[in-house]
């Protein structure tokens, strides 16, 4: 590591962001099971340290692309909880006017060029954003979050090639959360994912994705590498998806595809209490600070939900008018 890790302020901000992601998603989970959401939701619970640790190193001018499991990335990059919640509710006041929904939350003004329902698609889009960043020439980077499952899509190798060839300022963040939908990673993924990146001239690192400080530190290096014109960087973050692939799965699958014991084991490594313990131990936060964060976040989530509930459901007519910048559905 060539940096000294996050400052106390940074750690506190990361922690707050992780709690926000967790609580927003717990709310979405409850809302889903209460039948309040129009579509399905893929929750990020358990992986918060990755989004928060990485995005703490980014500015609004840096871009991120994300996955079907994109709430965490959206919130970590500074997306507004209210308009995200409204989007998932399918409301006109949603960040995408209710047109995208959970799988497609995006806020261009924050550099969030979009979650994506197509596994692997974000990689090429990010390479394009990194190309743009290189041409802009002002040191911005483009970061792609993608899963271990997505790592089996050929577009990974293609983007490793083109970004290293052109020294594009792209940062690859592979979130190895153990599953490719309902398939345990080992049953679909051969070899080590980081080795795929090591076949190319780039900065590569593997990190504990449930350790926010470690993620921040690795990301700081990777992003600095990319920012300074040295080309792409790759981080494989080992983590675990605590909830199902999507919340609907309990109603759909006829048998489980993983052990409860495994889930419990990973709950024991939960990045949020872990970071809280670290902060207390390091004397940079007290129990009451932690309680404050929780309370503030609860209020923020309440507010987001109220905003969403109050929004008008997106209705007829809007879609065709949104297809073309220059008007008309063609």
């Amino acid at each position, binding site marked *: 590591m060539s940096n000294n890790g996050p400052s106390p302020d940074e750690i506190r901000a990361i922690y707050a962001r992780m709690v926000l992601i967790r609580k927003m998603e717990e709310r979405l989970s409850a809302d889903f099971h209460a039948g309040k959401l129009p*579509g399905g939701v893929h929750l990020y619970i358990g992986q918060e340290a990755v989004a928060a640790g990485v995005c703490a190193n980014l500015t609004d001018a840096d871009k991120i692309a994300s996955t079907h499991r994109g709430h965490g990335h959206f919130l970590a990059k500074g997306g507004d909880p209210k308009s995200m919640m409204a989007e998932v509710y399918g409301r006109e006041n949603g960040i995408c006017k209710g047109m995208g*929904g959970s799988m497609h939350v995006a806020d261009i003004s924050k550099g969030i060029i979009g979650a994506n329902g197509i596994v692997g698609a974000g990689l090429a889009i990010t390479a394009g954003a990194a190309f743009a960043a290189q041409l802009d020439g002002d040191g911005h980077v483009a970061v792609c979050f993608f899963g271990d499952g997505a790592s089996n899509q050929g577009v990974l190798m293609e983007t490793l090639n083109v970004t290293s060839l052109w020294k594009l300022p792209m940062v690859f963040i592979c979130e190895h959360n153990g599953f490719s939908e309902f398939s345990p990673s080992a049953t*679909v993924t051969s070899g080590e994912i980081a080795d795929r990146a090591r076949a190319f001239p780039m900065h590569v690192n593997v990190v504990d994705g449930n350790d926010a400080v470690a993620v921040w530190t690795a990301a700081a290096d990777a992003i600095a590498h990319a920012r300074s014109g040295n080309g792409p960087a790759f981080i494989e973050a080992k983590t675990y998806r605590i909830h199902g692939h999507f919340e609907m799965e309990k109603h759909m699958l006829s048998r489980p595809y993983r052990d409860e014991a495994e889930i419990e084991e990973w709950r024991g490594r939960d990045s949020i209490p872990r970071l809280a313990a670290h902060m207390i131990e390091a004397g940079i936060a007290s129990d009451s600070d932690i309680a404050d964060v929780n309370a503030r976040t609860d209020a923020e989530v309440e507010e987001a939900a109220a905003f969403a509930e109050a929004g008008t459901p997106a209705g007829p007519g809007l879609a065709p008018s949104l297809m073309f910048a220059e008007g008309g559905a063609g």
Partner: protein
Amino acid sequence: MAKQRLTNAVNDGLAEEMRRDPKIILFGEDVEVSMTGDTIGLLDEFGPDRIRNTPICEATLTGMAVGAAASGYRVILHMMMANFIYTGFDAIANQMSKLRLMTGGQITLPITVMCGYGGGRALAAQHSDTPYSLLMNLGGLNVAVPCNAGDAKGLLKTAIRSDDPAFFMVPGGRGGEIGEVPEGDYEIPFGAASVRAEGNAATIVTVGAMVRHSLEAAEALAEAGTQVDVIDCRTLVPLDEDAIIKSVAKTGRLVVVDEARDRCGAASYIAALVADKGFAHLKAPVRRVTVANTAMPYAPAAEADLLPNPETIAAAVRDVIA
């Protein structure tokens, strides 16, 4: 006749065919756990040689289907949802649909590609497409689109037994719907439409999920004294042109109902066919009830507004008989 969910009928069809023919193999993403239930239990019965749960790599999956079929296997490729065929589109468009011609007929490709298609479930733009017209334009691919459990099983069997590549596309929202399924082994031939309702006032031609809406429209019209033919194409390639022309010869009026986007959709092809071969019979404009040339929005009301429904279908019929 037994009552079954469509997805269970498909599951039975797969198992029965795999029992019949040891050369059948099936692979795709998460076919082991089986989200919709269509492949459930197959791994247990047929083992990991014949049922393979794959990585996410559609470009390779479609290509592998071609390679395994060209090497003597009868391949069932499970692509989950129709939007994912785009990711594996090269081997569909440049290989599967062309290799037989390119090799002068040397290669035989008994491939069935399965997927769910269509909207109506707030899955948003990337999980709601109805891309059969793209496949229809490629040539070299059969396309079956069942509307109910019984047809699903029979068409699936025909697809699997065929020596040509076929897409078997199930309406995404209909997997849970219960319908009659004949006992025993049966095939439903390709290119044989089913006349689901009869009448002299107009012809509705449709397919897949839109059959039910069309039948509801027909019922509503019947209550007002208008009887219409409702023709379910069942397969879009080959298409039962005769059934369509015959009906239009009787009614003189045609409404085509299609869940796909309008431009260059199946509806426009069917309308064009009739405007050519059935022109002499036509007494009114040929109407298409389709989806605007728009990606599918997430919000349910926005989505519903785009999809054909019994009211919009009935309105189109009233229009052409006015």
